[in-house]
């Protein structure tokens, strides 16, 4: 573990090498990136394995002296870090491999790999940081990396706008983080996690201050993790290349917000209000984003809203004091969402469109992508036996046990939505007739399918490290030696698991009725004739019933929420920008080039100062 600091350096090395000689290497750049991230992955696995048996490792040195304060820098390997290192380096490695096929033929191939390296470096550095300041530095670097990657197709106007939006929206959150961090420093005289937690435990920080700093830091997490109301950048960020979406929006950047809250969990758990805020924002985002996902027609946008929604789940878990549940879902989500994005990339690679209305019937043509996408869909929908099922169940239990019945209900409905829109996506893309021009549709090369297979396996089995049936290894290990984090496993009423299963199956069933139905009905009619007419009628009836009630209401709600999203949230943002620009205009108008004007303004300024001085009485007493 003492060599853990090497892990982020491999991708950095890749970045530097490709920056210097990438042009000469051309597509061979991929091997540099892949090999170096593989090195990171191997080290991460070693560190993770070592951490199972050994205590937390911390090493730091004085980095900067400001007045009487000594700021430190270093790295730490605790359970959370070790797990994150593994997740990040694994997904990054797989994305590096996948991109070799996906980006093949791109003019700026080496640049893409260089950016990937930079981004991976930043994310791994973030994860290893033992103090807030260092975290903040890498946090910003992650922002720069994502800016470059999202804007990679810089000749596309949308990509440029999306990169800028992602950068600025997350920056707004970062300001909250920075203020919270400074306030915390001011109170505890340290940026180090361990010392901050020690001061809080010792009661050196007032309750209001804990709440305030926790919420300010949470604002940073809101920005990075695309929580309401700073989520709008995330769907737009889909303009980046698809492997980037898998990397940024599944396992790394957006997970950084959740990671931050988890890493600072002792701070959050010291304040009821802060936890409640986290839980509420999380639950609201989960249902809010899921309902928007119901009506999207762009394959990547559906996944983007689904990401926002799933991140909401994690926040809900953390806010309900379900530390293990949140981290657990972070892990399983990283696998199945990366899988879904890569599979979506494979689909896009095959049909050259992102509009699901123009797809359909791809199951037979993409013999590998189809089943893998189905695995991801089943996992995210929470079908029993797959990873998403176990982690989602943990979250629901945590919400229920945490005493938030309303939030629990919201999460349950969101689970229903999730199952529904994910299968809507699946049926529209893979079943039925081909609706668009689909020529030369072929399966992606092995270099792309192989990473998907790895993720597919993980999406199935990753849940078994923490189940109520076979033991909660992950949970017990995560909280080992740290009581503030709560229990390794929460005992909840067993009906929650049943309810979650029923809900998710209901969602799938409904999706099938609406989007898969037509195919089946046609088969049915051709095979059975008019025999089951009544049954068919009944089914139709149910369909209409749902169409009239559930679907139209949720559609209405989701359109309404989208309306709020476009006009209210963006409107406020635009208003602020407009105000600042107006101020700038006035300022530059005064600047008319006349020297006498400048003199006048200066004398007026002096007169004003003197006037205030006279008015306040100065020192004449």
């Amino acid at each position, binding site marked *: 573990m003492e060599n853990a600091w090497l892990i982020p350096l491999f991708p950095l090395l890749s970045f530097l090498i490709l920056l210097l000689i990438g042009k000469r290497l051309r597509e061979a750049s991929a091997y540099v990136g892949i090999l170096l991230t593989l090195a990171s992955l191997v080290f991460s696995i070693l560190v993770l394995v070592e951490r199972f048996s050994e205590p937390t490792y911390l090493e730091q040195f*004085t*980095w*900067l*002296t*400001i*007045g*009487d*304060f000594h700021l430190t820098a270093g790295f730490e390997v605790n359970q959370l870090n070790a797990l994150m290192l593994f997740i990040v380096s694994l997904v990054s490695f797989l994305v590096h491999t996948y991109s070799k096929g996906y980006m093949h033929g791109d003019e700026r191939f080496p640049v893409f790999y260089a950016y990937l390296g930079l981004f991976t470096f930043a994310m791994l550095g973030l994860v290893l940081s033992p103090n807030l300041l260092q975290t*903040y*530095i*890498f*946090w*910003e*670097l992650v922002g*720069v990396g994502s800016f470059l990657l999202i*804007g990679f197709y*810089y*000749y596309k106007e949308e990509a*440029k706008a999306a990169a*800028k939006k992602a*950068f*600025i929206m997350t*920056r*707004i959150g970062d*300001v909250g983080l*920075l*203020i919270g961090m*400074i306030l915390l*420093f*001011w109170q505890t005289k340290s940026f180090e996690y361990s010392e901050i937690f020690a001061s809080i435990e010792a009661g050196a920080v007032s309750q209001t201050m804990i709440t305030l700093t926790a919420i300010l830091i949470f604002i940073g997490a809101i920005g990075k993790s695309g929580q309401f109301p700073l989520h709008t950048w995330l769907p737009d960020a889909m303009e980046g290349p698809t492997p980037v979406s898998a990397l940024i929006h599944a396992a790394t950047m957006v997970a950084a917000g959740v990671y931050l809250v988890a890493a600072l969990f002792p701070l959050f758990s010291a304040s009821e209000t802060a936890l409640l805020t986290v839980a509420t924002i999380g639950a609201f985002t989960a249902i809010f984003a899921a309902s928007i996902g119901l009506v999207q027609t762009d394959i990547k946008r559906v996944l983007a809203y689904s990401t926002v929604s799933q991140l909401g789940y994690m926040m809900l878990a953390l806010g309900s004091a379900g530390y293990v549940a949140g981290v657990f879902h972070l892990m399983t989500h990283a696998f199945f969402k990366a899988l879904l994005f890569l599979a979506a990339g494979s689909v896009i690679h095959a049909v050259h469109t992102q509009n699901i209305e123009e797809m359909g019937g791809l199951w037979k043509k993409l013999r590998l992508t189809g089943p893998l996408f189905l695995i991801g869909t089943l996992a995210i929908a929470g079908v029993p036996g797959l990873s998403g099922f176990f982690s989602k169940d943990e979250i629901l239990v945590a919400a229920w046990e945490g005493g938030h019945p309303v939030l629990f209900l919201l999460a349950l409905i969101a689970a229903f939505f999730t199952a529904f829109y994910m299968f809507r996506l699946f049926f529209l893309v893979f079943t039925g007739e081909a609706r668009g021009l689909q020529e030369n549709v072929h399966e992606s090369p092995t270099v792309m399918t192989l990473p998907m297979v790895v993720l597919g396996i993980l999406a199935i089995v990753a849940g078994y490290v923490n189940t109520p049936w076979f033991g909660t290894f992950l949970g017990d290990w995560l909280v080992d030696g740290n009581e503030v984090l709560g229990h390794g496993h929460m005992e909840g009423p067993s009906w929650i698991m049943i309810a979650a299963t029923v809900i998710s199956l209901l969602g799938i069933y409904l999706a099938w009725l609406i989007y898969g139905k037509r195919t089946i009905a046609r088969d049915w009619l051709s095979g059975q004739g008019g025999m089951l007419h009544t049954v068919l009628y009944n089914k139709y009836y149910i369909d209409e019933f749902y169409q009239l009630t559930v679907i139209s209401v949720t559609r209405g709600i989701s359109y309404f929420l989208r309306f709020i999203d476009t006009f209210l949230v963006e409107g406020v943002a635009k208003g602020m920008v407009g105000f*600042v*620009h107006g*101020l*700038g*205009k006035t*300022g*530059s108008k*005064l*600047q008319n*080039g006349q*020297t006498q*004007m*400048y*003199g006048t*303004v*200066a*004398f*007026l*300024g*002096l007169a004003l*100062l*003197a006037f*205030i*001085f006279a008015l306040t009485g*100065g*020192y*004449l*007493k």
Partner: protein
Amino acid sequence: MSLDTLLSYNWGIMTPEFIILVVIALLTIFDLFMPKTMDRKILGWIGLAAIFAAMVTTASLAGGSVESILDDTFRLDSFAIAFKLLLLAGAGLVMFLAVSHEAKEGLENYKGEFYYLFLTALLGTMIMTSSGDLITLYIGLELLSISSYILAGIRKNNLKSNESAMKYVINGSISSAIALFGMSYVYGLTGTTNLLDIAAQLSVLMDSQHVYLLGISFLMILVGLAFKLAAAPFHMWAPDVYQGAPTPVTAFLSVVSKTAGFVIVIRILLTVFGAAATEGPGSVPLLLDMQDYIAVIAGATMIIGNVVALKQTNIKRLFAYSSIAHAGYLLVAVTTLSSNMFYSIWFYLLAYLLMNLGVFAVIQVVAGKTGSEKITDFAGLYRRSPWLAVAMGILLISLAGFPGTAGFIGKLNIFMGAFATEGHYVLASIMIATTVISYFYYFGVMTQIFFRPAADTSKFHIPFGILVVLIITVVGSIWFGIFPNTALDFMHNNLNIIDDFFS
């Protein structure tokens, strides 16, 4: 004064000044006798050598005790050494720019003057850092100002350059007059111009009438010097002057001249008003009472500088406003008066020197090639010259205060200072908010460089001097962002500014 006393002085502490002075004299004579056709660049290189020699001697003077000569008018303390090093480094980099400057029009005949006027201005700033007396302070200030006026207008046949110089003279004179008027009050109250004597007398000030007068004098000095810093609302000359002056001169004004401005502000405010009692000996010093006035100017400067920068289309005007904004951040450090103030201001000025001079080096190359100074000229720079673009990118993120760069550490220092003393929250919030605003224009330039197609694809020729400046500034911006302690440790170990300053 007899010859004996004159000879008994320790002239050694003035070595850096003497080096510069002698070289100025030599350059003037060389220029006079050199054949008209001969390239004057050699003068620039001699000037550079002089600056380097002065830097080495200044550094070698570090660590000694405080010494003063000439009736305490010239003093060498740690403060003087620390800031002299900054000024010399800045002037050295500017000299590199000047040597590589290929003017399109109207400079050829005056190239000799170009170099030694930089040196006289530099000499002025050095005298300011070492002044123990209002008179020498003012002389230094005027030496700097008058040299700068001529420099701004050195392209005689260029209308913009003329306008720039004219505006600078008028505004500069106004500011000098106001500051001098303020100083006359101080002299009137104490009957001396020596800073330490003034401090001693004012520290036992009892009469509230006198304190009132002193308050007015404080405001006038503050306003007069705010001109030099280009702090709002006394900043309006800056964009016009920066735009019209040749690029190396603009770089000099925005970095060296500004640094000197902060030197004189700290000297006068801290020594004179930091000692002045408000209600008899031992009472709250006047400076603490007047903090709010500095705070208002700091806040206004940050807001105006950053907000108006959003609307600029000319790259030099943009950086004029950006430099106004940076003066605002520095004023925050002056306002808070934390124990760490000297170090945070020094470090910020160091970071600012690196990133701003680097940016002006790039501007000089790009504007020299295209002949105009529009921000859109930077479109597609990444395509045309990737290295130049990457260098500019690094300097811009340092200016924006991004973690991992010297700009970030500088801001962090100031920011922590604002919290260390009894919370200047409002000022700190303004600082953060305006920093966020600044991303828009810095990244606007970035967008041009990296994301816009180039109008033409011809490559850039990067002269040797520019290359040196770019390497130093880019490496420095990153180095001091990652290892800030290398600079701060040197300060802490060799220079004890706080103890020296008042003795």
